[in-house]
């Protein structure tokens, strides 16, 4: 009865999925992500510093590869500390940055508004303005600024077709492979880029201080960690199964430890499978059936080189 019910549900879901594909203008399989970097650069003013203005700082949002974000972001609003005049600063065009001078560190709320065909909901970021270097004793120079940047990605899980068409080949955007058979309308020719003010930050005056973010190091680190963890998992499973077999030989066929044994086998096999532990998992599953014959257990143990 229940199986019928669940299979009915599955069928219903499939039906809906098909319908959605036809009816919906938004694309569910395609996710657009925009890698951005946001942060601040702060210079100590040195001799020219006074009590209220000791640093000159710039807070900004830029593309991770310094591409022009203007195709996606319509404007950026930086909310400064209330002690500033007009603490709500609106930047209508790229590069989305704001320079000010001051003495205090505070949290800046950055709100990004997107173009109409991109998204009608704004996105909030928070950045803590940093003026003073980590080590207090270090020599502070006018030439070398304090730089704090954070990498993140703006994700649009269901972009509209118009947006997709518009930015399909823009360098600032990460577009995954479009599903097979999916064609986009040709992009609308953009106005002559030389006429407009440059929105990218490749030749920005502060570009020399921009940090580099590479995912390769992080991926390597994560892969190494996963290797280690899976190795540990294998060792643990082996031990668990060995205990099971130990019980088996000790308590014989049908008495007390039997329940515990089958539970162990079951739980060992229910954990995630990696290629190296497949053999072990298969054996663990099969032992539930052959547990009536302890003789075979001994044989199998030997084949898996588990010492008794």
């Amino acid at each position, binding site marked *: 009865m*229940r*199986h019928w*019910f*669940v299979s009915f*549900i*599955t069928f219903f*879901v499939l039906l809906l*999925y098909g319908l959605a594909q036809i009816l919906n203008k938004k694309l*569910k*399989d395609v996710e657009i*992500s925009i890698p951005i970097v946001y942060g601040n650069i702060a210079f100590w003013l040195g001799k020219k510093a006074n009590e209220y203005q000791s640093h000159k700082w710039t807070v900004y949002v830029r593309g991770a590869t310094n591409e022009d974000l203007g195709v996606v972001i319509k404007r950026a609003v930086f909310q400064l500390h209330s002690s500033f005049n007009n603490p709500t600063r609106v930047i209508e065009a790229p590069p989305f940055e704001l320079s000010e001078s001051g003495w205090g560190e505070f949290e800046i709320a950055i709100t990004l508004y997107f173009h109409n065909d991109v*998204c*009608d*909901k704004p*996105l909030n970021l928070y950045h803590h303005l940093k003026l003073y270097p980590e080590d207090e004793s270090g020599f502070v120079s006018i030439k070398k600024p304090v730089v704090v940047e954070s*990498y*993140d*990605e*703006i*994700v*649009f*899980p*269901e972009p509209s077709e118009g947006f997709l068409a518009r930015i399909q080949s823009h360098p600032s955007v990460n577009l995954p492979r479009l599903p097979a058979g999916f064609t986009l309308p040709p992009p609308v020719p953009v106005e002559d880029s030389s006429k407009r003010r440059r929105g990218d930050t490749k030749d920005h005056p502060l570009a020399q201080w921009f940090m580099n973010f590479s*995912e390769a*190091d*992080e*991926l390597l680190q*994560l*892969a*190494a*960690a*996963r290797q280690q*963890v*899976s190795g*540990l*998992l294998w*060792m*643990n*499973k*082996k*031990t*668990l199964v*060995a*205990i099971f077999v130990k019980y088996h*030989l*000790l308590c*014989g066929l049908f008495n*007390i*430890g039997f329940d*515990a044994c089958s*539970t*162990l086998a*079951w*739980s060992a096999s*229910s954990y*995630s499978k990696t290629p190296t532990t497949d053999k072990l998992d298969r054996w663990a599953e099969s032992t539930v059936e052959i547990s009536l014959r302890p*003789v075979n257990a001994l*044989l199998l143990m030997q084949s898996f080189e588990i*010492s*008794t």
Partner: protein
Amino acid sequence: MDAKDILGLPKTPLPLAQEKKSQPKKDSQRKPDGISREVYALTGGLAPLMPSIDVSQLKRRPPSDEKITWQWLPFTSSARKDNLQLYHWVRVVNGVPPTGDYSFAKYNKSVDVVKYTEEEYEKYLTDPMWTKEETDQLFDLCERFDLRFVVIADRFTSSRSVEELKDRYYNVSRAMLIARAPSPGDVSGHPLVKEPYNSSQETERKRALSMVLSQTKHQERKDTQVLAEAKRIAESRMTALGTEESALPVASNFDPDIAEVAVNLDDTASPSSNAQLASASVAPSTSAMADNASTLASLRMLRVYMRTYGLEQMVQAASSSAGLRTIKRVEQTLQDLGVSLKPKVPTKAVCSEHLELRKEILTLLNLQKQLQYKEAEGSSFRDGSYTDMPGSPKWSQRDQDRTFIPDSMSFGGERVGRRDQKRKGPGRVSENPSSPAHKRPRKLKASDL
């Protein structure tokens, strides 16, 4: 340059401090008369809403000019039809007994049962199921017992159910009402006319009520289980609708798992640790899948989000089944492995790797905990039944295997057990000659093959 300005303090002191001073003075001044201060404080310092006892009334004595006597006097009650004279004590004031009816006579209410004449019966009230005598008897009983139908049904000569009696009574009353009314419109507001008695509905209702009341505990449990399962199926259907892409693998996962859980629930035998552990290991995986699917759905609803936010949500969903301590251990493990808790470069690939790593660490920690439990069980079990087995030095080799696991495990109990066995070994053999003999046939079998 005002010091207060720099520090950001407000210029004027808070007015609140001044208000607070006046309040306690007021409280101590007010103290009611009549009852002591402590008793008044018990009420919370507030007067009761209703006047409870008028204090001045308590000590009042009757006015001294009146002469009160108590006399044993006869009385009659208008409620009685038989003029029976009874006696009771009466408070006589100045030799004048009180006047008026018996004070409880006003409580003798009765129901106005409809009275019909012969002609009226012939004209409106004939019914194939009811004879005139029966109807008359019914009405007589109704009058006597004030429409207590249970009693009437009991007293009724021919066995009729309560619903039948009620049906007949209400139909007759209704017919009489309508017949006697000058115009139909007059009585259309009367409840009898507006809502006629529906005996079949009543029977149904009473049957359903008795069924609900007489449900056994077993039945109740089954009902709640079925309802819970239906809810779960409905929820899984919601998540499946929300994430149509991942619906297929999720639904197929649910299939064996739901059947699994159902099997465990339907087992009316006492739940063994076997069933519990199996369901416990199955349940977290299903709930994790459901959480994953629902967070994906909720992220999709957002239309735009930062990847770090998305990662946070997924991490939360994945560790929703784990307690706070487990989460801390996962984070500790991550740090030990040299991985930052929040990736510095959160690209899509990095985030998914990070999430997978967290899940694997969670699995590892759970497995290690299980291993600990089983080892503890094993050591206690072995102490009880371990006799002599070949290859005891090989047991210690297994211990060396275990040191690969970084987490410190309770080896203490295990090792102690083993030492005891080594001591006990020779002694045991001498004590129970039968058990090695029992074991030997089995060992022969093993070595035969």
